[in-house]
């Protein structure tokens, strides 16, 4: 008996003899006709070409479009970088006159807002909200009347929008009017605006909802928020009223006694004076309660400025990211100003090519791996 390997060897030789020249020629003819059919098919060649060139063509088109768009944006932002010309002052608007002037001495903290806290942009508001020490005076009165409390409330909210600042401000004004609030002041520029108003605390949520809708990220930033118990202001007036009333009672008792006419006249004058005082105190008490029953609202509206807006002042150089963005943006701005539009586009093409090419290579690598893996899986399933 021959070893198995030898039998296999003989069988292999015999099998090779099976594939005769005639058979080879027949198969070759079949292959040639298949080649002609496959490679002259317009759909096949078109698809082949598309599949090969599509990724590169897409990348090139994307880079050029991005470069042109960015160059255009940069040009616009350069125009925007001019001193602000738009200024809105509610004091001069006719609507202001239509609104009821409720409280005259409302004042807001002199906060200058610029940006919402995205990235490392400068935000002056972060520095002003210093928490007061947690302490209270034992002799301070925190209630008045029948254990009632009075609070002084104020809130500063911020939104960032892609919409026009003027139309955004108009939306908020309308909402405040609808909420029966009082507009105090609006001031701003093309890139930001500040709106100040007072309104019923229960209507604040309506305004917040509107602000969230107007914000590009559908969120409202609360910059500052304060509530202070001011019940003592009313309690002091209450004490004054009680004191005046007590004096009236004392003088009234004296009037019933045996006193001279001169003395009676003097006492009656005192009583009249005390009664007037009580009226004044009561009026002041009502005014204070009325004033503090409303919340003071400040809304800071910022217009979104993308990276390529080249407004390098918006970045905080104290942080690493901010400093890097500051320098890059400044350099790009210098290029923009010192060169023409075509060169700017070329520069942006170079920048985007450097940024996107590694990403493209990575995506292509991953895509090929995935396709190969899927093919393997398919083959395994077939097997």
């Amino acid at each position, binding site marked *: *008996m*021959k070893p*198995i*390997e030898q*039998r*296999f*060897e*003989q*069988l*292999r030789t*015999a*099998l*090779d*003899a*099976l*594939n005769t020249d005639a*058979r*080879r020629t*027949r*198969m*070759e003819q*079949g*292959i*040639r006709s*298949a*080649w002609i059919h*496959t*490679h002259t098919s317009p759909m096949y060649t078109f698809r*082949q070409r598309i599949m090969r060139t599509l990724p590169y063509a897409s990348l090139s088109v994307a880079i050029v479009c991005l470069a042109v768009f960015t160059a255009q944006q940069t040009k616009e932002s350069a125009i925007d970088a001019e001193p602000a010309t738009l200024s809105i002052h509610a004091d001069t608007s006719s609507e202001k006159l239509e609104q009821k002037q409720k409280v005259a001495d409302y004042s807001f903290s002199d906060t200058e807002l610029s940006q919402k806290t995205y990235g490392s942009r400068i935000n002056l508001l972060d520095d002003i909200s210093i928490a007061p020490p947690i302490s209270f005076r034992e002799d301070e009165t925190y209630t008045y009347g029948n254990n009632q409390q009075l609070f002084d409330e104020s809130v500063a909210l911020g939104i960032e929008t892609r919409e026009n600042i003027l139309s955004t401000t108009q939306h908020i004004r309308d909402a405040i009017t609808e909420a029966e609030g009082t507009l105090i002041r609006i001031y701003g520029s093309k890139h930001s605006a500040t709106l100040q108003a007072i309104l019923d605390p229960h209507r604040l949520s309506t305004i917040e909802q509107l602000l969230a809708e107007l914000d590009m990220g559908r969120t409202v930033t609360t910059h500052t928020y304060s509530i202070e118990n001011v019940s003592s202001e009313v309690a002091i007036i209450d004490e004054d009223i009680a004191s005046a009333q007590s004096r009236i009672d004392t003088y009234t008792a004296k009037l019933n006694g045996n006193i001279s006419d001169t003395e009676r006249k003097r006492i009656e004058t005192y009583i009249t004076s005390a009664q007037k005082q009580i009226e004044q105190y009561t009026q002041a008490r009502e005014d204070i309660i009325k004033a503090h029953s409303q919340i003071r609202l400040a809304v800071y509206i910022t217009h979104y400025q993308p990276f390529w807006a080249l407004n390098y002042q918006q970045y905080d150089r104290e942080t690493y990211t901010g400093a890097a963005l500051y320098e890059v943006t400044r350099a790009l701005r210098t290029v923009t100003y010192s060169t023409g539009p075509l060169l700017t586009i070329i520069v942006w093409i170079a920048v985007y090519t450097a940024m996107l090419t590694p990403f493209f290579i990575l995506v292509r690598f991953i895509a*090929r791996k995935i396709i*190969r893996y899927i093919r*393997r899986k398919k*083959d*395994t399933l*077939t*097997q």
Partner: protein
Amino acid sequence: MSSYTELSAKEIQRAIHDEEAFVVLFRHYTDRVFRFLWMRTRNTELAEDLTQETFIIVMKKLHTFTYTGAPFSSWLLQVALNVARAHFRKKGNTPTHSLDSALQLSAPNELVAEWIDLYAALDKLPEEERELLTLKYLDDVPVSEIAYILNISPNTCSVRIHRALSHLHTSV
């Protein structure tokens, strides 16, 4: 050790777009593919059809072949194996009986009798072992390529071939 040579990467690359280069590729590998498919079909006419089908698929898919270290023939035989499996799955045919197929070969009676025994022994083995021995001894494929085709590690492949050969010895 395999006695077959491989085409260079350049020649394979050229075959994607050049008809003559593809015909060269076909001539170079046709015997191996034909024998490979004959062993799985045991039918000369069917093996010829499937060989042609294999090369047509290769013609269409050659641009997807990327050289990863494994020889081109591994990829080619993998395509041929898939073609054969797809054929039997679609048609539902089973390979021709070992005796008939052996008789199709023009060889001395003594040899034919030995091959009939060999076929019978092979048919008794599990499919995986039969596949391994066929690839190793009839298709003359090196162990590393068999491992690539069957998607297993070379060490595992060697161990399984050794085990399959022992089983075949027992059967014969």
